[in-house]
């Protein structure tokens, strides 16, 4: 039968403060693939403000059907399995927003993003944030916060990482970090001049612009 996957959309948009930051990185008229496009908010934003040629891939069939009904070009697909069908450098930007931590093989997925896109934009919740550290340190329990609302046993987020972890993975894959932004709890950018450790402690989310 159909799996539970249909029920969990890859992102919770109430908490997607990263959308505008992602959109700011994309110049008008770009060809964009949004992997894990959810209910299509980013694609709609990009089409309205940047006139992009936007496509989406989303795991949840419900999300896909809603997107297509709203006129977006979206297919049902799995970032872990279906990126291989896209040609090299077929898009100017491939966006993976709040989805990396839910993939089975984040390294392979990131590698594919860098192959398909001239640029890749990846945003993810930072597991090195002080609240997460505090929760684990003081309570000794897996953190359940406003931004990470799932219990450990039913979370779609199976591969959390910290900002430092992600930077290491980029190095391993030979990706160049063109731009990186950390966002605080209110979605505000944390000052550019801050060192990595500061971002890794106070950043709730991170947005990376990469290329290879």
């Amino acid at each position, binding site marked *: 039968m*159909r799996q539970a996957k249909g029920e969990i959309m890859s992102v919770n948009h109430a908490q997607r403060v990263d959308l505008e930051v992602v959109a700011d990185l994309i110049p008008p008229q770009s060809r964009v693939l949004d992997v894990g496009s959810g209910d299509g908010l980013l694609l709609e934003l990009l089409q309205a403000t940047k006139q992009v040629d936007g496509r989406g891939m989303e795991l949840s069939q419900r999300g896909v*059907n809603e997107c*297509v009904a709203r006129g977006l070009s979206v*297919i049902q697909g799995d970032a872990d399995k279906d990126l291989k*069908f896209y*040609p090299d450098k077929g898009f100017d930007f491939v966006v993976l927003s709040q989805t990396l931590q839910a993939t089975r093989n984040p390294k392979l997925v990131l590698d594919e993003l860098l192959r398909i896109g001239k640029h890749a934009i990846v945003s993810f919740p930072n597991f090195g944030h002080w609240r997460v550290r505090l929760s684990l340190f003081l309570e000794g329990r897996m953190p359940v916060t406003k931004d990470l609302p799932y219990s450990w046993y039913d979370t779609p987020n199976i591969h959390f990482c910290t900002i430092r972890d992600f930077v290491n993975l980029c190095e391993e894959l030979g990706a160049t970090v063109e731009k990186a932004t950390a966002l605080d709890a209110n979605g505000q950018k944390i000052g550019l001049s801050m060192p990595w450790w500061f971002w890794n402690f106070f950043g709730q989310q991170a947005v990376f612009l990469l290329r290879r």
Partner: protein
Amino acid sequence: MVALRTKRTNNEADEPSSLVLRFGADKPLKLDAGTLLSPFQIAYKTYGTLNDARSNAILVCHALTGDQHVASTNPVTGKPGWWEVLIGPGKIIDTSRFFVICSNVIGGCLGSTGPASTNPATGKPYGLDLPIITIRDMVRAQLMLVDHFGIEKLFSVLGGSMGGMQVLQWASSYPERVFSALPIATGARHSSQNIAFHEVGRQAVMADPDWHGGKYFEHGKRPEKGLAVARMAAHITYLSEAALHRKFGRNLQDRDALTFGFDADFQIESYLRHQGMTFVDRFDANSYLYMTRAMDYFDLAADHGGRLADAFAGTKTRFCLVSFTSDWLFPTEESRSVVHALNAAGASVSFVEIETDRGHDAFLLDEPELFAAINGFIASAARARGLSA
């Protein structure tokens, strides 16, 4: 009664009660079989008005036993058009906005040249003297119809099942003539299982002594029993086990107990017999052979060195594919492989899988999610094409 029916079908084949476009010796139809079909004719219906820019035309392609009467009463059955739930004034495909064309495919039996049509060389029905027709031949003929209207680019081509195969063929053969394409419940090739079912149907027709090697009209007969059995077997493949169980279960037909005989004890038997009997009233047996063969031969990848993506190389057409979870004739995987090929070709593609237990035939039914997808896709394509609402 038989003679009456025979005559009626025959008339509809040569003199259809719809519009008909006739092509003389100067305009033959080139067939994949390697011969030319000439003269030939295309029976068609249109709905709505072609705008001055000729940019609002939608071509609807019908399925195996469909016809041109997509959005108006069928002259043979007296029933509503086969996609009237979708197409008409104020409907999802709004004929007050779009110019909808639907033609009977070549090889059909409602007015386009097919095996029931009169062969001008002999004055008798073609029967099996008609060359084998392919999906590409059907599309080639449709192109001549579209040219007749002076339409350079169709706003959309849509269809389900065999109609979806034509949509894919259109998009592959004439990408510059198709702005958007909506192949529903279909695939880029006919699977081995599907060929198997078709072969069962054909053998049922041919096993009927009234078939007479395809020359039944000359004997004043029609292989009704064989064609009915073919339809009964095929009809099962259009539904799903869950839907059959939901509708019929093991319910008995107009009786309280089993009869210990071979009467239609069960409702499902009675239902299938009815499907078979009503089908032979409206469809020509030889045409059924030709239609099923056309689907069997369809393999878009094979025409492009085995690589389906090459069938769509460089396409600018916007695609939307739809499949249904309980469709075991064209399971979702068939659509998905087309989607992957389109991804590889860099095409703009949407893909919706709809959860339903109604099987393959879901595309002909009132399925709100299907309508929502078509509506969203058409609306966004219309904006991109600059068509006013």
